[in-house]
């Protein structure tokens, strides 16, 4: 009987052990660190899986680890996440358990949320020195590293500014030499370019992200930052934001320069419409669109341009307006507070943001460098990329607040819930007001909770 009890106890312990193994698997390389002798240590890096270049990414992982081992003796283990949700789950688990990857590669707009968890290292002057100095980066890319210079967590790793692609042949045929720099001018050009089944613009109204970027940019250009962090006030119920939505919807309902099917489009479908020559302008794309465009019928016939920075209804930038060409888009790297290899982590980030590595990365993956020297090198002799780099220097950060995630969602929600009206040809002013009030309330209550 006694042996039976013992057996039961062993079985029970085995079960607990089994259940707990899962919690400790990612604890590799957490031995104490001293200096930069990383011999025998492993750094854990969490990074987004690259769907466009999966093989190249695997090779890059190997190359980085080999180079880092040569420099410090430590190896690098990469973990990938497929979606923002995967990433968030991993961050939550790590934040709660105090163990996990040493470095996370985050999307720029997710940086404020990550910052608000308080789980990542705030970079001191000394830390910046370890990375090679703050001044090695393109200044605009630092705009979303933290709420202010003293409280930065994100180190810019790659830049993905948003620009507009246009079909050179279509513009030439219509006698237009270059895209307008005002939104009104662009709509006028698009009207000229709309004939038969070719439309002036390809817009992804059903995308989960695109709509807020348009609304944000047009609002910024009118001097409205969506969230006024100083006064802790959301400013969505403002004529500027309403004007932005009306312009965005008006392209379809009033100007009729967008394919009516676009109310069901995601970004990829808008790219596909442009790629098949059915649209003259394709606003809100990054350099990664090159991959699909170069394989399409418009290969060699398209170019990129900075999106208009003069707001709807204006011919010049208002005095309080900001010439926001794009959000600061790309990836930031953050180092976990719980990491016991922080110095080693900084040294890896330094290696990855060095001129050589950044140039190499851009040549392989198409994302642009955050390292200023590397950006210069890439720009030379590359006409296609030049406007994208230019847009990167004119980028503005979205409000650095934990409330931004909710606000962004509320802005997109206005578009999602307006799709039925959009489909019937008109989003009424009162209807839009009601939706803006709802979005304002969501953003405000989220801002009230922000710490």
């Amino acid at each position, binding site marked *: 009987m006694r042996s039976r009890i013992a057996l039961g106890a062993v*079985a029970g312990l085995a079960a*607990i052990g089994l259940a707990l193994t899962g919690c400790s698997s990612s604890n590799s390389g957490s031995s104490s660190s001293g200096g930069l002798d990383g011999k025998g240590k492993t750094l854990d890096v969490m990074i987004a899986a690259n769907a466009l270049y999966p093989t190249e990414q695997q090779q890059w992982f190997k190359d980085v680890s080999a180079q880092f081992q040569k420099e410090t003796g430590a190896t690098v283990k990469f973990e990938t996440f497929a979606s923002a949700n995967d990433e968030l789950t991993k961050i939550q688990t790590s934040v709660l358990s105090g163990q996990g990857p040493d470095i996370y590669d985050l999307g720029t707009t997710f940086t404020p949320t990550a910052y608000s968890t*308080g789980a990542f290292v705030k970079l001191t002057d000394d830390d910046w020195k370890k990375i090679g100095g703050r001044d090695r980066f393109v200044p605009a890319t630092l705009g979303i590293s933290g709420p202010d210079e003293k409280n930065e967590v994100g180190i810019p790793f790659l830049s993905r500014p948003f620009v507009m692609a246009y079909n050179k042949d279509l513009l030439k045929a219509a006698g237009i030499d270059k895209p307008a720099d005002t939104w009104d001018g662009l709509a006028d050009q698009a009207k000229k370019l709309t004939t038969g089944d070719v439309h002036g613009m390809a817009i992804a109204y059903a995308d989960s992200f695109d709509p807020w970027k348009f609304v944000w940019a047009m609002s910024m250009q009118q001097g409205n930052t969506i969230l006024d962090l100083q006064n802790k006030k959301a400013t969505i119920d403002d004529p500027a934001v309403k004007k932005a939505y009306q312009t965005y919807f008006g392209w379809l309902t009033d100007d009729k320069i967008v394919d009516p*099917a676009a109310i*069901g489009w995601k970004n990829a479908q808008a790219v596909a419409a442009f790629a098949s020559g059915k649209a003259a302008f394709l606003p809100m794309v990054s350099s990664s669109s090159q991959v699909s465009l170069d394989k399409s019928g418009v290969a060699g016939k398209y170019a990129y341009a900075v999106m208009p920075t003069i707001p709807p209804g204006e011919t010049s930038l208002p005095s309080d307006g900001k010439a926001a060409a794009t959000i600061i888009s790309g990836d930031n790297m953050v180092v976990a507070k719980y990491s016991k290899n922080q110095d080693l982590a900084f040294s890896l980030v330094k290696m990855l943001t060095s001129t050589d590595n950044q140039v190499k990365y851009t040549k392989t993956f198409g994302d642009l460098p955050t390292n200023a020297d590397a950006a210069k090198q890439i720009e030379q002799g590359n006409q296609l990329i030049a406007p994208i780099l230019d847009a990167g220097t004119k980028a503005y950060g979205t409000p650095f607040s934990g409330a931004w995630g909710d606000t962004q969602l509320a802005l997109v929600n206005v578009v*999602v819930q307006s799709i039925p009206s959009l489909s019937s040809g008109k989003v009424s002013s009162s209807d839009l007001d009601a939706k803006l009030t709802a979005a304002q309330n969501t953003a405000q209550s989220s801002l009230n*909770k922000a710490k």
Partner: protein
Amino acid sequence: MPETILIPPAGEVGEQSGSPAGTNPAGARPARKRPKRGHEKGRPLWMLLPGGILMLLVIVVPLIVAVLMSTLDLDQYTLQSWLQAPFIGLQNYFEAITSSSLLRSIGISVSFAVIAAVVTMPIGLAAALATQNKFRGRALIRSLFLIPYVLPAFVVGTLWRTMLQPGGVVDSTLGTLGVHPGLWLNGPLSYWSLIIVQIWTSWPFFYLLVLAGLQSVDHEVHEAAALDGATWWIKLRDVILPYLRGPIFLALIIAFLHNINAFTLPFVLFGVPAPVDVDVLPVLTYVTSFQSFRFGLSAAMAICSLILIAIPLFVYLRAVKLDSGEEEKR
């Protein structure tokens, strides 16, 4: 005389198929003797320990954590040391009910789940009856029937999303017939799109369970009905269906639970933020947690939905007599 022949041994059917049988008027099942107290003492209950501990870790602990979370003001700011997050009692529940779209989402989820479950019943039943008798190519048809069910929800969602898009296959096909119903993936019709797609993907489940139930109908019963000159309708209504009462009831409840928990399909079909007409409970909970980072609030929503699901689950457990109380009484 024929009536006596036509009464099916419902109790036995239930036993064989492991499904909720109807009542057993004939009392065909022999009463089970309860073991004596003396024997209970020697039972090696400790052998349940590993399973018990696993259950504790996998089910009970997360449940307790969820209940605890629902009483905390847990968000991105307090996540790092979540046990120190401010305790706010029932405020999350209050907020969920009064100022979130929880009640609306419950309404959408429950009605969608009921409609989809009820509509799949006759389809599955008809399909099972149609493939009951042997014919050339029956195996192939039976396999084809299962395709919608074995496809991953993600694939089904993507497929239908493409078909239902403005200007997509569905619109252009209906357009040639002169029908222009409007938007499928947003607006009031989206609710019916969700129901149609859920029915498309889940009816084979009914079909499978009914098919299993049909196997248990004695051959003699068919013969007897034929000898008595019963028409197909009388045979179906008075002979076959009483046999299938158990499997159908079981399938209804499981289908309802599947539907109400469906996340992937609405998520892929409509994306987030979801159009108001298809803002189902699982999607709402997901958005609250992973887009708004209100973990406490979403835990409260999850507990509410757990209670909602517990009602049919309770009915189900009673029906299959898995709860020991019922077993003891018998």
